């Protein structure tokens, strides 16, 4: 009979490869290549060669059909013991954090002692699909038994059927790009161009400074000649960003540019979680614990809510369950899908009508101390390989909390496609 009590899962550390803008340094790398290299870097950092950890959980948002068992294949190609079980998850941009929550929950229940959560994505080596008409024709060609049947099947192919379907960063139910959705939300909340550019510039500057002082020395392992994220612009400034033309939204109100939106990015990340006992027995550190997590989804199709606003709804549920206020945190990690998303999220929490009307609260959650927000930069600087962002944030925040000393608390908020959001609390 298993113990009925639960325990908090420890975050031991993490590893990621530097993130690369789509079509650059990792143009020839597959998801499996990147995830395997990331696991091997983690193995080297923590001496896990030949070790069978309880489970490896990871995923990719854009995935080839051949990668049906992506994580297990990456494990088999890594220095972990081949007896390490693995499975794939996918929750859009929430994949990485959701994977960490899944691993943490199994540790909390005593089902495993240690596990690795990760994520990987490439938009350079993205899968191409053939259109449904051609696909059906090819399948019937394959099952045809006579020459005549085969010729008949081939005769159905038309030139127009040959164009491949390229995956787009668009919502299937609205046909709008994620940026277009974000632009609608930005307009609704009156998010200005300048504050977006300020947030973006600060993200670049802070991440560059963090690299310079060695903060990422034990969080990143170089890959294919890249030692730092190649989207990072240490000399980014509001003045430079102000020169860019808007790419999302329309007319006068268009404020979102390539500078204050994350670019398509390739990369991978992994986080090592464990029970305190396992970490102690291995002489490994406990940077922080994963305290609790919450997901939420919004009806962005018919319900009038913004596509990326789900974390706004998830956080108050999480706070209430843990008896905390929004101000009870030393660090806030709000994923910078777009600068406007971060700003709209905070604005919504400060808005009395929204908090009462939509979130069902008695009072607004209130403002957060901007000095505690994304203190070592976030996705606008690093880039955003969808499923890899959660692992990047979890490992970085755990290290920040550890450096700040015991009893410090951090909040993670990640928005995801499909109107979803994953949020979590870490504590040192």
């Amino acid at each position, binding site marked *: 009979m298993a113990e009925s009590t639960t325990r908090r899962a420890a975050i031991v550390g993490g590893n990621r490869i530097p993130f690369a803008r789509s079509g650059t340094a990792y143009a020839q790398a597959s998801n499996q290549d990147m995830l395997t290299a990331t696991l*091997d870097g983690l*193995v*080297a950092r923590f001496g896990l060669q030949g070790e069978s950890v309880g489970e490896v959980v990871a995923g990719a948002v854009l995935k080839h059909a051949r990668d049906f068992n992506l994580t297990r294949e990456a494990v088999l190609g890594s220095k972990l013991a081949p007896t390490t079980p693995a499975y794939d998850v996918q929750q859009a941009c929430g994949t990485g954090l959701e994977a960490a929550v899944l691993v943490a929950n199994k540790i909390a229940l005593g089902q495993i002692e240690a596990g690795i959560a990760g994520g990987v994505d490439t938009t350079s080596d993205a899968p191409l699909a053939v259109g449904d008409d051609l696909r059906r024709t090819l399948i019937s060609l394959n099952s045809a038994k006579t020459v005549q049947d085969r010729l008949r099947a081939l005769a159905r192919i038309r030139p127009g059927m040959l164009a491949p379907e390229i995956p787009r960063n668009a919502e299937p139910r609205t046909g709008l790009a994620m940026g277009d959705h974000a632009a609608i939300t930005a307009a609704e909340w009156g998010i200005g161009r300048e504050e977006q550019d300020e947030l973006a510039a600060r993200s670049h500057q802070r991440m560059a400074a963090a690299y310079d002082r060695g903060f990422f*020395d*034990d969080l990143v*392992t170089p890959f294919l000649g890249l030692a730092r994220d190649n989207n990072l612009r240490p000399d980014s400034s509001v003045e430079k960003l102000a020169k860019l033309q808007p790419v999302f939204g329309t007319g006068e109100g268009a404020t979102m540019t390539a500078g204050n939106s994350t670019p398509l990015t390739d990369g991978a990340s992994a986080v090592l979680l464990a029970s305190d006992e396992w970490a102690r027995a291995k*002489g490994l550190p406990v940077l922080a614990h994963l305290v609790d997590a919450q997901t939420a989804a919004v009806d962005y199709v018919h319900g009038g809510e913004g596509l990326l606003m789900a974390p706004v709804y998830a956080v108050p549920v999480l706070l209430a369950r843990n008896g905390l206020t929004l101000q009870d945190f030393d660090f806030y990690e709000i994923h910078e899908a777009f600068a406007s998303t971060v700003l709209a999220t905070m604005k919504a929490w400060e808005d009395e009508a929204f908090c009462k009307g939509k979130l069902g609260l008695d009072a607004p959650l209130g403002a957060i101390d901007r000095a505690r927000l994304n203190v070592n930069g976030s996705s606008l600087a690093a880039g955003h390989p969808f499923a890899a962002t959660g692992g990047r944030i979890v490992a970085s925040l755990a290290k920040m909390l550890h450096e700040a000393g015991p009893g410090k608390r951090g909040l993670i908020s990640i928005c995801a496609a499909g109107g979803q959001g994953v949020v979590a609390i870490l504590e040192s």
Partner: protein
Amino acid sequence: MADWYTTFANSGLGTTITKQLGLPRPAELRRHEPGQPLLPGPVVVGSAGAGRLRDTVTAVLRDAGVTVQSPVTADGATDGEKPAAVVLDATGLTGPGDLAGAHDFLAPAIKRLRASGRVLVLADPPAEATSPAQAAARQAVDGLVRSIGKELLDGSTANALFVPEGAEASLAGPLRFFLSGRSAYVDGQLLTVTAADVPENPDEVAPLAGKVAVVTGAARGIGAAIAQVLARDGAHVVAVDVPAAGDKLAEVANGIGGTALQLDITAADAPQRLVEHLRERHGGVDVVVHNAGITRDKLLVNMDATRWNTVMAVNLQAQLDITQALLDADGLLRDGARVVCVSSQSGIAGNRGQTNYAASKAGVIGMVRAWAPGFAARGATINAVAPGFIVTEMTATMPFGTREIGSRINSLQQGGLPVDVAETIAWLSQPAAAGVNGQTVRVCGQSMLGA
């Protein structure tokens, strides 16, 4: 793995051609492999002078399962198999007259020496002589050994150990090293041992079992070889290199069951971060190898301050700062700790275009000498290893002529391999090497430079 010329010179056709043309005939060296016997044949042991070490030598050899032969007589009468090593105990020399005994013993014995043989001469330190005649005889050993080194063929080496009165217990470790395949590329060296409390190696196959070792600059070349050899000998290796080399570093760590620590050793907080890492992950450290080094060559008159300063920061200041931080961290540097600092032939001989590099590497020699007594007081040692021409990725990019000449101007007529440097460092890291302290061991095949 031998270089292309060595392979060629040892092939059928290559043997004929190189002999006919009188070209260098480098031998394939006998290198250490775990589990192999200390020597592939017997050792002939003799003495000149009183010879107070002969019994110790015989006991060490018998322990290692090596057959000890009596001296070959001057008329050439032999005693069975050809020897794999010749050991002369020349302690107790009173004056030059006693050296005739050295000649009488060595000449017939060396004549029968096998390929990759070893000649080792044990003597009293010249500096401790009580008369000019005694000092002269002791110092004569220096010239004798260096000359033998230059006369030996087929990958054989000659070295000397100066063993002061009272330091007899320190002899076993160095004796085994100089006879073994670990010292393949160590030739023409004169090393002084000191009296120390010498622990036994726990195991001759894994002499570093249970030890935690740090190796800087471990991502490639000599550093990677050091990490591999220390791990082979039983140590858990913390492989350190700059973050930009992290992928290669992870490969090295994963290949040896070690751990990777990405750290710029010249960063202001690097010593503290290393200390914290070692304390948190391992509770302490037994072996520290300061291997990280860079070159920024330029003639002195053309050298800018950046070239000078970066070389000094990496090659010398970081070694000083990290060692000091480890000494200061209470209880971190475990009893019997071993620190090995990589110097260079350039630090001994100087090198055109390398004023910065040579200065930094000479500084390392001074540093270990100065620190040695303090280390001895805590049962620890600190030594330097000075590689000569070692075949690495770096030398592969040298022009053909420069590379070929650089690799041939030594008694073994070939460049050394990274593993040769690593073997010497691994030996200095052993518990049984407690009596070697403050020394600089050259791994240069008896290079003509700086000798």
